[in-house]
């Protein structure tokens, strides 16, 4: 399944809903989406990954790269992820310490920085 992306504003942040596979082929699409948002001045981003079916290290690289860019603007990147098999990827690569990971978009949007 391909990657699909949709964005919306919610509580002063931008929610990026990601569904499908984030891999070496589709990750550039996500990178461009995040870069566009940052350039448009949307520096508080919530990435809703509940619909992600596959995530590889290229996808992690794009998220980490996005986070770095956002931090240059004093922004924030929060993830919403509920699937154990995706959470495991963040755990074994040590990225649970890098990203705040939430169980719902509501708690991610409400979280203080």
């Amino acid at each position, binding site marked *: 399944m391909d990657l699909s992306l949709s964005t919306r504003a919610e509580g002063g942040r931008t929610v990026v809903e990601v569904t499908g596979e984030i891999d070496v082929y589709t990750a550039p699409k996500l990178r461009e989406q995040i870069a566009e948002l940052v350039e448009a001045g949307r520096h508080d981003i919530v990435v809703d990954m509940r619909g992600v079916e596959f995530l*590889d*290290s290229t996808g992690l690289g794009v998220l980490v790269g996005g986070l770095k860019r956002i931090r240059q603007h004093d922004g924030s990147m929060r993830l919403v992820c509920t699937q154990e098999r995706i959470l495991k990827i963040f755990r074994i690569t040590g990225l649970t310490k890098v990203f705040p990971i939430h169980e719902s978009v509501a708690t991610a949007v409400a979280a203080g920085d």
Partner: protein
Amino acid sequence: MATVELSFVPLPAHVRTARQVAVALARRTGLTDDVLDEIRLAVGEACGLALSLQRQSRPYDPVVLVFDDDAGLTVDVRASAPLDAASGDHALSVLAAAVPRPAVTAEELPVGAALAVLAEFAPRLEVTTSDAGMRLELSWPAVAVANR
């Protein structure tokens, strides 16, 4: 005898095809859905590394996968980009050094993460590098399968 061989020019789109072939074979050998997920991830990362290497110095040579389902599943991922000869952990560092680093923003393949995923999900991982290229041999032995 190799059961199935897949080779592809080093383009990202083909990595998905490689994952599909690996999962199709694994399913046929009766591996459980949990193991299928591991295979999908590990084979994807191995192909990602091979692709990065190949694009850097041998962009017209294919990445080759040799599958064997005699006892469990063995997936042998090969790139022909020349490297220093080494095996095991040594080969891992040769490999890590050879895969091109992303410019500034680290938005390409994070080698550390790729290797972490491989180490976590392939119960057996053998790495060899030489001037003939890189070889990553991942196996999910039939024994490990029965234990899950």
